[in-house]
């Protein structure tokens, strides 16, 4: 007999164990899907999760993909911890990239040490501006932030499209939908010769450290935690709810904007139509998988980044459709949410004897 018993308190050990369980279950289910599609499951999983990161280049690509995921997820964890559902990070990333790209284009024929900091700052400000829209509408007009932030994703991509096709398109670019190349001073330096990993990774690491400090060492972190548990308690304690909503949105917008800066001033060096393979949405999964904990988010961003690389490798070597990556991402979140059941409930196996 199996009996399900409610735990008196959510289990702390299980809290950190379930992400691992979720990844394991995703692998099992993924193998099953590969089998149904007619591939050898173990070979497919190998191409998906091991081959892409087996060499130096692959590892650099992994870090390259994990950087924006980590950065955005850190920002989102501020929102999610305090019960604010910002799901439009993709739009904030895009708008940050637009603003920083615009600034970089202003300096396109100039060199100078001051250019890069301005470009980076512009990206953060762009992301913040864009995130402030759902935040202000939520606080002053009671508007649902989920729908507003999501609608703005579509709008931002159309703005980008308009700019790279129209006014910002490269005059010598034969009508390709892209801007001029930024000058070298506006590009994030590459860390190792021959690899694509760039200095953007330090932005992500800085975000990890700062967020850890804010979450666990400041009064603001404590306020966020309380608001996350119960808005009523937060109100009773006299916290300024509106200010906090706007603040967490600005932080998360800044992080997404910085991720956008990394995408355009890193390996690409120009604005074009598709600057992000939905990093903003995938980062939502990363934030949850990392348990909204800065260190957890580092690990989660590496795991989820593999699904991007694996999808590409599996497509090249086994003709497995590249969308399998997204399927894996969805499954990870499903399994994670499902295994959270174990946080609150114990499964007891009861023998025939009492």
């Amino acid at each position, binding site marked *: 007999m199996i009996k399900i018993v409610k735990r008196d308190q959510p289990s702390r050990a299980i809290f950190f164990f379930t992400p691992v369980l979720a990844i394991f279950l995703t692998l099992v289910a993924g193998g099953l899907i590969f089998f149904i599609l007619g591939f050898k499951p173990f070979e497919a999983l190998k191409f998906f999760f091991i081959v892409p990161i087996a060499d130096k280049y692959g590892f650099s690509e992994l870090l390259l993909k994990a950087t924006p995921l980590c950065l955005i997820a850190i920002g989102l964890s501020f929102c999610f911890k305090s019960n604010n559902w910002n799901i439009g990070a993709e739009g904030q990333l895009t708008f940050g990239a637009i603003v920083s790209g615009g600034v970089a284009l202003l300096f396109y024929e100039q060199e100078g040490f001051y250019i890069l900091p301005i470009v980076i700052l512009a990206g953060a400000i762009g992301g913040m501006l864009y995130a402030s829209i759902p935040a202000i509408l939520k606080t002053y007009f009671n508007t649902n932030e989920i729908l507003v932030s999501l609608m703005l994703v579509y709008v931002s991509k159309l703005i980008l499209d308009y700019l790279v096709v129209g006014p910002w398109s490269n005059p010598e670019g034969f009508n390709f939908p892209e801007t001029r190349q930024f000058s070298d001073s506006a590009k994030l330096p590459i860390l190792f010769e021959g690899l694509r990993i760039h200095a953007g990774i330090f932005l992500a690491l800085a975000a990890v450290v700062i967020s850890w400090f804010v979450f666990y060492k400041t009064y603001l972190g404590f306020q966020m935690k309380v608001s996350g548990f119960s808005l009523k308690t937060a109100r009773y304690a006299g916290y300024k709810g509106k200010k906090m909503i706007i603040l967490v949105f600005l932080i998360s917008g800044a992080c997404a904007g910085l991720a956008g800066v990394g995408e355009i001033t890193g390996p690409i060096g120009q604005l074009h139509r598709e600057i992000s393979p939905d990093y903003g*949405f995938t980062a*939502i999964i990363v934030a949850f998988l990392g348990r909204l904990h800065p260190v957890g988010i580092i690990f989660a961003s590496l795991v989820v980044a593999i699904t991007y690389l694996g999808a590409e490798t599996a497509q090249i070597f086994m003709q497995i459709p590249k969308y399998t990556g997204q399927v894996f991402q969805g499954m990870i979140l499903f399994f994670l949410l499902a295994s959270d059941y174990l946080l609150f409930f114990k499964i007891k196996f009861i023998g025939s004897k009492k």
Partner: protein
Amino acid sequence: MIIDINFIGLIIASIMASAVPLILASCGELITERSGVLNLGVEGMMIIGAISGFALMTVTGSLIIAVFGAMLAGVLISTIFAFLTQTLITNHVATGLALTIFGIGISAMIGKNFVGIPGKEFPVFFEGLKDTIPLLGPILFGHSIVFYFAFALPFVTSYFLKKTKIGLIVRAVGDSPESASNQGINVKLVRYACILYGGAMSGLAGAYLSMIYTPQWIENMTGGRGWIALALVVFSTWNPIKILIGAMIFGGLTIIQFHMQAIGVRIPVQFLTALPYIVTIIVLVVISRDSRKIRLSTPSSLGKSFHKDN
């Protein structure tokens, strides 16, 4: 300039046609939300419906199997959501997002083999009557069965919620699951049923897109309609008849793009494409500003998990 009155009729008919998927998905989601469940996976269920319908039509050649298959696919995928949120008591928002991400991935995976295949002609009714009445002819006649179903659905939904016993139970479960449960109603069962129904309607909305509206499979072809459908439910303040109005406004915005371009209005095409999304935001702001009204019409337990300790 003389404008042909039948041309106006045709424009209105095309606006109605583009409103169909929004009406279907919104009415489905409205029932789900009325039972207290917020399913953000509409976009995912819709796209699954779109590919399932198109794939089944191509493989089996039967339109009936395809339409019902798409609804069944919507039901199946929403079962995952129902199981997670109701049985395993997961967070509605996160689970819905996972459903959308998963659905878009799965649909693209299945759809890989169906890109570029032409669709089939879907039968329409009363084609011959189109020219008999000026203006109203093109509006009333020459549409598919799904079209007529969609425009009847808000009225049926309204009747169901207001006048039938099951409708009352659904509302009771959404407004006060505790008292409903005390009355002997199986809250989880009702919510399961409402979620699956929402899945079926989203699936049908998707099938309409890939089989009737633009009969072909294009990746990501729902293009955010699932999210607009969600916004429409808020816009309607959970009243099915108002969904009809909202869907017509958004259908109109979609159609206006084409006509503006056709008459050569010099507005960047991206701005016109962005219009429905921007208007959605503006409409949400206007509707939600009155927080008292929203609080009164929102199902009280919307998005909150219900678990009965035994």
